[in-house]
């Protein structure tokens, strides 16, 4: 008798056990899918984080403590969000171009498990780079860090929002070329024109005001607030702005994925 002798299942699965099983399977799918680039991605993240911190010293020789503090804490945010904001949309664009997108979305799992598996993958990929960057910063500069428990929700909300904004972008846009252009621009804006690695008052007034409503500055604020004392003001507002972005990106993702053509 073969395994297929019984008639196929007809009862629908639901509930917590189904959700948890689906989440674990989708996480496994993501990790195996990225196996060939997993190690290299983590290494790139580590080099990017550590490189940023060390490059600052090469540029300026003697680095003012406040600048060292900003870069060392800001770079953590960059290592946390670049995979979700840049690599994520590019991977989805590739799935659409290769026409494998439909198969992945035909899999019988709750949509939330696929999204959360991707967020978890980002955490696994981003955390080593973040930890190494912080370690290098501590070794290189005499940083005045005050690590608090607040860093945990700050890191998780930053990673979640960055990943989900990228996720919404990835699924909402159909054109892979447009996705490539937007993600390239995002990198440029994140590194050069957002108050992540430097204080907002160094930006032109209009750009600083704009960043009060974009998610990048609040990300840097809450992570920095979890690592320092007396450097960041208005943390509650940053949580609120970032939380709003998180909810909006989840809502957009749900709407786009539920659209069904």
């Amino acid at each position, binding site marked *: 008798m*073969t*395994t*297929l*002798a*019984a*008639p*196929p*299942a*007809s*009862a*629908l*699965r639901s509930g917590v056990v189904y959700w948890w*099983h*689906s989440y674990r*399977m*989708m996480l*496994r*799918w993501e990790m*195996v*899918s*990225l*196996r*060939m680039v997993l190690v290299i991605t983590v290494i790139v993240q580590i080099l990017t984080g550590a490189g940023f911190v060390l490059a600052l010293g090469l540029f300026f020789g003697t680095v003012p403590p406040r600048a060292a503090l900003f870069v060392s804490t800001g770079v953590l945010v960059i290592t946390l969000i670049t995979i979700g904001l840049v690599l994520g949309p590019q991977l989805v664009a590739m*799935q659409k171009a*290769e*026409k*494998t997108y*439909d*198969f*992945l*979305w*035909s*899999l*019988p*799992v*709750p949509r939330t498990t696929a999204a959360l598996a991707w967020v978890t993958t980002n955490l696994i990929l981003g955390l080593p780079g973040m930890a190494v960057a912080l370690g290098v910063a501590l070794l290189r500069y005499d940083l005045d860090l005050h690590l608090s428990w607040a860093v945990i929700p700050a890191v998780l909300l930053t990673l979640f929002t960055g990943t989900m904004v990228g996720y919404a972008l990835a699924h909402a846009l159909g054109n892979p070329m447009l996705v490539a252009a937007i993600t390239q621009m995002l990198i440029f804006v994140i590194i050069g024109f957002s108050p992540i690695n430097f204080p907002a008052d160094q930006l032109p007034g209009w750009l600083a005001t704009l960043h009060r409503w974009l998610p990048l500055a609040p990300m840097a604020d809450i992570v920095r607030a979890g690592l320092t004392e007396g450097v960041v003001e208005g943390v509650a507002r940053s949580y609120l702005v970032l939380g709003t972005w998180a909810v909006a990106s989840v809502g957009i993702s749900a709407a786009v994925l539920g659209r*069904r*053509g």
Partner: protein
Amino acid sequence: MPEERRDWSLRVRDLVKTFKEVRANDGITLRVEPGEVYGLLGPNGAGKSTLVKQVIGLLAPDSGTITLGPYDLVADPDAARQLCSYLPQAQMPIASFRARQAIDITGMIRGGDRDTVTRRRDELIEALDIGEWRDTLGAKLSGGVRRLVGFAMVTACPGRVMVLDEPTNDVDPLRRRLLWQEVRRLGDAGVAVLLVTHNVMEAERAVDRLAVIDRGRLLAEGTPSSLKAEDRGRLRLQVMLGPRVETPALPPFVQLHTRVGHNLMTVVAEAEAAHAIRWAQELMGLGLAEEYALGATTLEDVYIRLTGDVEAAGREAG
């Protein structure tokens, strides 16, 4: 009602789906019974893939219904995804998966428990004769083997409905036969198989019933024999013309003709068989033709008559 006695037929009624101005599905109605292998035959752009994507919950129709047993698949796309397995026409995204691993994970995602999926995976690997690649990475598999692994992935824990979109693309002739045997086994287990193809010859051998679709409409439906019934009393005369020979003047008894490359296919009445042979022999005598064959009309002739899709039919016949 006990599950096994419930009517698990897949019913599609008056399905309409438009993209901008194009009516990709224009009022399609069909029914697939459990255990039946049902072919959707039609040229590229006929609306076959649009139809199956609505069945599996990836697209929502403008109007019409799709039901499976007690479930409304339009209203409940989650049910559609749980109850229908889908092998898309594109290759599977398994470049970094080992073949057996891709089958296992997909089987478990589809709800199979580890032991059952592992057993079924081993059966499928043996049945499809792909054992030598069981531990090979997807990136290193040939197109045909990757296709077979894809088939094993979606059938490791099959749903009530199995949607197979061109399953034999790139697969070698020997393993094609093995794959069709597995499709038949799915049917025997009570799965309704919806087979999308434009490979007419293969469909004729593999399906129980089929629908010919073109421009979003269902042109004909039935068993391969019933569809050919209208062509009873006719024969197919196939003439292989010489290189660079133009299509010769056709005698009046030729009812239908198509030419793809050097292959001239004609349909003649049975009563004209002797005339047809004489004509073909004359062409050979004049050096215009290299060989000919006279035989019963096939589903391909029916397909060409219905859709005018000479290219696809010719390509598959070649």
